[in-house]
């Protein structure tokens, strides 16, 4: 079976069967990371352009590593943007790069919908590495893979996502993916950081941390940014930490075998205490490894030929 679209723009529109295919494929790829020679020739000579309009070391490096392990060639463009400065338009940048005929564009941009705009513009595949407040599909997939490895299933689990949901594309991708696979998703955070009409999404909304993580199998802790405090969305990091910071004590409300995820980078001491971040229930380093595996799987599934082959 194949992916239905030439692009990976979000998990909202993806079918449960496609998600399963990606997770299965990623599991097969993960073993390559344990080999001495981390190289397979599958994408030899194919070209991948990463176009990051927002600073990001981990996601960009993860995609580049994935591409290189598969023997693809990568070019990386880090563009600084400001909505005030009118430099070359996104459209012109992409069309210029397209004329060098890359197979895949990987784009991160602060404007929701930017990957959709580009996907209509070029015949190459486009992978959304994070657009504004909209989605971050590869992160959603690696989160699901981490949960699946640990719990053996996704259906029926309770997953609590805690923090600045409003600005989090990770939270949204997690929500779409997990809901599709039958998990129960909760958004937990102050009202000012919960998106409008969130109750209409496939989630339960909580503003109280303890109630929100009660009985949860998974707690995904989001990073809180200082800029949000400056915008008056909550009074101080201290108060945020007191109300929503994840500590071992607070975690007792969740299931005994709860696992903790974090998309990184962590603000140790604010949204998550070191005692939790470094504990055995923290899956943060596994997430990073799974990130490379998931991204390899995405590149493989997007760039393969059109016919299906079953190994006999």
């Amino acid at each position, binding site marked *: 079976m194949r992916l239905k679209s030439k692009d990976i723009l979000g998990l909202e529109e993806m079918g449960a069967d496609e998600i399963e295919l990606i997770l299965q*494929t990623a599991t097969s790829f993960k073993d390559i990371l344990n080999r001495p020679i981390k*190289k397979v020739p599958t994408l030899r000579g194919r070209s991948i352009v990463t176009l990051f309009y927002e600073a990001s070391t981990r996601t960009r490096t993860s995609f580049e590593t994935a591409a290189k392990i598969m023997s693809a060639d990568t070019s990386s463009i880090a563009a600084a943007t400001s909505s005030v400065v009118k430099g070359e338009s996104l459209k012109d940048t992409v069309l210029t790069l397209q004329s060098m005929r890359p197979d895949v564009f990987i784009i991160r941009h602060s404007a929701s919908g930017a990957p959709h705009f580009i996907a209509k513009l070029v015949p190459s595949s486009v992978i959304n590495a994070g657009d504004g407040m909209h989605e971050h599909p590869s992160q959603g997939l690696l989160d699901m893979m981490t949960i699946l490895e640990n719990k053996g299933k996704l259906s029926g689990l309770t997953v609590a996502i805690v923090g600045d949901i409003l600005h989090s594309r990770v939270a949204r991708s997690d929500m779409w993916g997990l809901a599709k696979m039958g998990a129960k998703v909760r958004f937990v955070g102050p009202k000012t950081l919960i998106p409008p009409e969130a109750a209409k999404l496939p989630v339960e909304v909580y503003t109280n941390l303890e109630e929100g993580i009660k009985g949860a199998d998974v707690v995904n802790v989001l990073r809180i940014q200082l800029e949000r405090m400056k915008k008056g969305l909550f009074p101080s990091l201290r108060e945020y930490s007191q109300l929503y910071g994840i500590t071992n004590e607070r975690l007792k409300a969740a299931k005994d075998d709860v696992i903790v995820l974090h998309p990184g980078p962590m603000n140790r001491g604010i949204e998550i205490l070191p005692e939790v971040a470094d504990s055995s229930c923290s899956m943060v380093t596994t997430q990073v490894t799974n990130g490379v595996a998931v991204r390899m799987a995405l590149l493989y599934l997007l760039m393969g030929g059109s016919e299906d082959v079953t*190994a*006999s």
Partner: protein
Amino acid sequence: MAEQRSLVMDADEIRRALTRVAHEIIEKNKGAERLAVVGIRRKGVPLAERLAALIGEIEGTKVPVGILDIALYRDDFMTKQSAVGQTDIPFDVNGRTIVLVDEVMYTGRTVRCALDALMDMGRPASIQLAVLIDRGHRELPIRADFVGKNLPTSRKEMVDVQLKEIQGEDKVFIQKSEG
């Protein structure tokens, strides 16, 4: 389009062929020391397990078995996409004598992929190839060291190996498609 199936090996014939191949492997390698058997997904895997068990019984040792998925090494990725399965080599490849096992050898391309994949995992002392059926029509200069049965076929025919572990019974069919 009429399809004619004819049985070319039954369960007993398969069992005898595998037993003979196991003995040949032991003889060629003067024992089972440093030996490992790696099955090429999918059907090569149960055959590899059977061979490893047979060799182990004869020599009184345990022979390690590995599973090799060659999807990522195929040379037809641009036109075809195959599902990627698990590769599991639970032993150190370096310095080992590896016997690759597949159920049918045809063009030789699958074995070429398997050789590349194994080499990326380390440096075996040597690689040997055991196949249940060799049906001819090689497109690459590759030959099997151990063959269960030589089966001359035409390109229009299909060789269908059915194994107890997968299809419930051991049988080898040739299928002729007309038209």
